[in-house]
């Protein structure tokens, strides 16, 4: 059964230096509070996994938490570049960042294989592109029935997957709805999982076809209202687009970023 912990204790217990850590949520429900807690606890040498690294990986990379990034689209959505990610790739600041780079379909299917207990997934992708040439987790496989040559991508099984959801019930079952990304697959693929939630409810009343992660598949739940800010939780909050735009300026300059890190992260303050 999932245990209810504080976020601080969940990260301290279940996220270790050197871990492969997936932080999922496709624009919606991004687990920012958990990412910030990882920064505050100064984890190092992490392999971060996210389809869209977004601001949260930019912050973790700039803070020096990541050795490697597994991803498929690394921009600031609707704004432009991720400057800390770019600085790491272009100038090794604060240190070199290894890339394991995919398409969305490729990385999503790595999670599907991981969740399915299979060694790889098959899809029609990557043929003729330079993406496969730079990535050892992409190969090709011949269909035993038709002879068609298809792409194979290696299963991805994170040490820990962290997501944010709208609700947990008191038994520790988790519900999320709206844009659900790869959250279900990334939790099922992982050895451990941490879910931060907007709200803890007595029971789930309505019958919408929301993603449910049963309590016995989730490792830890932390009650963190607003834990996906500045992204959003459908029916709870709106995306703070001004934060995304402000990050473009703030993250451009190393010194300004380091001031942010010092005062807004390490001093335990609220971001921005």
């Amino acid at each position: 059964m999932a245990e209810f912990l504080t976020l601080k204790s969940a990260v301290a217990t279940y996220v270790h230096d050197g871990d492969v850590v997936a932080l999922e949520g496709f624009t919606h429900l991004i687990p920012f509070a958990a990412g910030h807690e990882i920064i505050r606890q100064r984890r190092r040498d992490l392999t971060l996994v996210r389809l869209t690294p977004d601001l949260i990986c930019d912050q973790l990379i700039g803070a020096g938490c990541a050795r490697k990034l597994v991803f498929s689209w690394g921009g600031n959505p609707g704004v432009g570049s991720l400057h800390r990610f770019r600085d790491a790739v272009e100038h090794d600041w604060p240190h070199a960042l290894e890339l394991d780079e995919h398409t969305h379909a490729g990385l999503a299917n790595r999670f599907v294989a991981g969740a399915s207990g299979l060694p790889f997934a098959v899809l029609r992708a990557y043929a003729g592109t330079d993406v496969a040439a730079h990535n050892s987790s992409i190969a090709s496989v011949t269909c035993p029935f038709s002879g068609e040559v298809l792409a194979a991508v290696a299963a991805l099984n994170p040490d820990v997957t962290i997501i944010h959801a709208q609700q947990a019930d008191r038994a520790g079952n988790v519900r999320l709805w709206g844009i659900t990304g790869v959250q279900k697959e990334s939790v099922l693929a992982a050895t451990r999982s941490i879910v931060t939630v907007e709200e803890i409810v007595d029971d789930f009343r309505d019958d919408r076809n929301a993603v449910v992660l049963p309590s016995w598949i989730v490792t830890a739940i932390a009650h963190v209202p607003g834990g996906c800010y500045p992204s959003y939780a459908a029916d709870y909050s709106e995306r703070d687009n001004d934060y995304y735009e402000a990050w473009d300026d703030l993250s451009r300059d190393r010194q300004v970023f380091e001031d942010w890190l010092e005062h807004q992260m390490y001093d335990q303050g609220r971001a921005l």
Partner: protein
Amino acid sequence: MSVFSADEIMTIAASRELAGARSCFVGIGLPSVAANLARSLHAPGLVLVYESGTIGAKPTRLPLSIGDGELARTADVVISVPEIFNYWLQPGRIDVGMLGAAQIDRFANLNTTVIGSYDRPKVRLPGAGGAPEIASACPRAIIVMRQSKKTFVDKLDFRTTVGFGDGAGARSRLGMPGAGPRVLISDLGIFRPDPKTFEMTLTALHPGATVTDIRDATGWDLAVSGDLVETLAPSDEELEHLRRLHTNSMAKATD
């Protein structure tokens, strides 16, 4: 005739290409503006599909990202990311893919990954996202991007997405089911693949642009169609709809 900008005629020309299409897999930025304009004007029943898993989105303002809450709120159905790619895009269910890019070559291959070398790039760009599979699987693709010698290049720094590969026959050799980029629309003109060589060939000039302008903004020796025409200037109605989309977006964004 109203005064219009180069970006406006590019977006309007791109939206016209969606007339008659049932569904469009939409990239963010210029493609999203063109697809939303098409839904409001040239293709009222157009099903907009975004890679966040929102199918049949009917946004009343331009979405700020592919995962904008407005897309989910107005969609016919919202599904997971593995599902949108595996069950919907891959089997070719979405008629048209509309894409942008940082660089394009003569065979409409696209780069959205790096400027410079991969290991030590001068500029690290966001990467592939959904583009490679959209260009591969959709029955046809439309590319919309601003044109200059920096964007229309002789050789891509990185081939993120295959258009026509190295020319005739490449798509079928690579096992790509869709017909590829049938049209490329820039802020200067319109280009379509030559039926034999599959090289993108200038077929229309936007009003005011000349072949010389376009050659000067192209990094390869550009092929020009013998039937070169002028792009129809935007109508007042088209401009009004496009400007209303932008105004609505700005008004809502500051709510």
